[in-house]
């Protein structure tokens, strides 16, 4: 049975109103915490350290009051791809992936397939990394409004003004991109419904019938792009007619304020992140 409701599966980027501890944090704090957490997640290969990181991320989720099930449901459409990637890591990375100070033991060898304790570790660590990053990225967008994200990006890029980084313009690009995601998703849904109403088969081409699948895409992509360009043009006209000229001389309606809780949160997370990077974990 077909289902046209995409937004049911898109969980990253969907703001869920609420009044939890995480919702109340300054958007800049949330972004800083995210950057601080991404560092150990990317650099640590240890089982134990990654397990700890997943648990801490789960802790953040618990503090936000958002259900873990909701965040995980966003992965469903990508599960097939993730499984294929995991299998490729397991079978083909046995030789190339050698963590420091690790005794490599071959577990399975047949032709081009080579599984070692190293590639097994890589698969498990990758899954944990993926989960941690998913929780962080979902949480940031689930608990922060688009405006909050924009202001935070602009503020955090401003120190780089001496390098001629256009902070305001970049954050505007970010806002527009984020703002258009749900609009385009909705538009796509309408176009799909309209084409299905006049006989187009949606998603029934079968996984291996590439030509049919490509043909289905044409009837969606052409109208979607025409619509998107039209919207972009309308937006430009609307901005011009309201005399928008960029950041120069522009003031703000909302000013962000860091509280003591924000500073404390950043401090605690920073200590934890550095700790994970420094401590030599046994496994």
């Amino acid at each position: 049975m077909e289902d046209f409701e995409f937004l049911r599966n898109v969980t990253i980027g969907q703001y869920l109103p609420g009044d939890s501890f995480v919702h109340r944090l300054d958007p800049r704090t949330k972004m800083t915490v995210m950057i601080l957490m991404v560092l150990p997640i990317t650099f640590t290969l240890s089982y134990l350290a990654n397990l700890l990181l997943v648990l801490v991320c789960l802790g953040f989720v618990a503090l936000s009051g958002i259900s873990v099930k909701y965040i995980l449901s966003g992965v469903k459409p990508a599960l097939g791809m993730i499984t294929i990637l995991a299998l490729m890591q397991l079978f083909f990375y046995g030789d190339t992936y050698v963590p420091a100070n690790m005794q490599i033991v071959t577990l399975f060898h047949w032709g081009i397939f080579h599984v070692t304790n190293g590639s097994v570790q890589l698969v498990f660590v990758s899954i944990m990394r993926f989960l941690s990053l998913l929780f962080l990225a979902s949480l940031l967008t689930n608990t922060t409004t688009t405006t909050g994200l924009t202001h935070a990006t602009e503020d955090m890029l401003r120190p780089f003004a001496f390098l001629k980084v256009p902070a305001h313009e970049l954050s505007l690009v970010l806002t527009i991109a984020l703002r258009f995601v749900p609009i385009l998703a909705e538009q796509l849904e309408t176009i799909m419904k309209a084409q299905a109403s006049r006989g187009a088969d949606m998603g029934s081409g079968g996984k291996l019938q590439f030509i049919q699948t490509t043909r289905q895409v044409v009837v969606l992509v052409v109208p979607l792009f025409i619509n998107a360009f039209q919207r972009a043009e309308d937006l430009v006209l609307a901005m011009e007619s309201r005399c928008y000229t960029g950041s120069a001389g522009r003031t703000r309606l909302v000013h962000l304020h860091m509280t003591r809780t924000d500073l404390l949160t950043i401090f605690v997370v920073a200590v934890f992140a550095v700790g994970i990077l420094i401590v030599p974990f046994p496994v």
Partner: protein
Amino acid sequence: MAVENGAPIIKVNNLHHNYLRGTPLEVVALKGVDMEIFPGEAVGIIGRAGAGKSTVVQHFNGLIRPREPGKVIVDGLDLSDPTVNIKELRQRVGLVFQYPEDQLFERLLGDDIAFGPRKMGVPFAELRPRVQWAMEMVGLDFETFKDRYTFSLSGGEKRKAAIAGVLALKPKVLILDESTSGVDPRSRKDLLGRIRCLHEEHGMTVIFVSPNMEDMAGLVNKIFVMADGRTVMSGSTREIFAQREQLLEYGLGVPQVTEVMHELKARGYSANLSVLSVEEAEAELWKILSS
């Protein structure tokens, strides 16, 4: 006029629907809708924004499937059955959306209108007469328009072309979900006239969703009023528009000429409240003036 012969072509029973089911953003759209539409009727569905009109009509061609305990039966097909031939259903029930010109994608207009029938497996030899028929039904001359570039057309022409794209399926039931809004008054009037012709001369069952009460009065014989996800009133067009107070309560109104009659009555004249068109109003006003 309505010919209530035999079984209804569309039967809706206790229909419920929630959008974004299973997420924190879940919204209730339908809370129990009941409708019966008979073959050859012209039916209107009115209600404020968010009342659930579009959600209901999207059930009629299987874009949304009914969930327990709701039942939708269209032309003998029970839509809660997952094995139902949905392609066949969509050929029988044509649905035109609010800005249907958004669905155009082919370079040449004729090809775009032929897309639906081609997908339905209509033989090549039959395609041309079908496209021609559909274009003529909406008032686009076949020879002039078939080889025009789709995206060089005016807004009104694109709208007509998109409706022709659905008509080319030769559906038994035509649903127009606010498909006449956003075009200039003349095109709108022209389109309404053509829809009336489809209903009166070709016996097509027409379901018309529109916020415009004048359009309703001129086209449909029967009206369902929806409010807050439920069907709250149903009856002949005259019956419904005679109940002005209740419609106002649901945030709706009556056609302007009917409104005039209600005003006259409020001032003590013996006005006939079932007036729906300017012609009827004129006759009624002469009657009041001469008495």
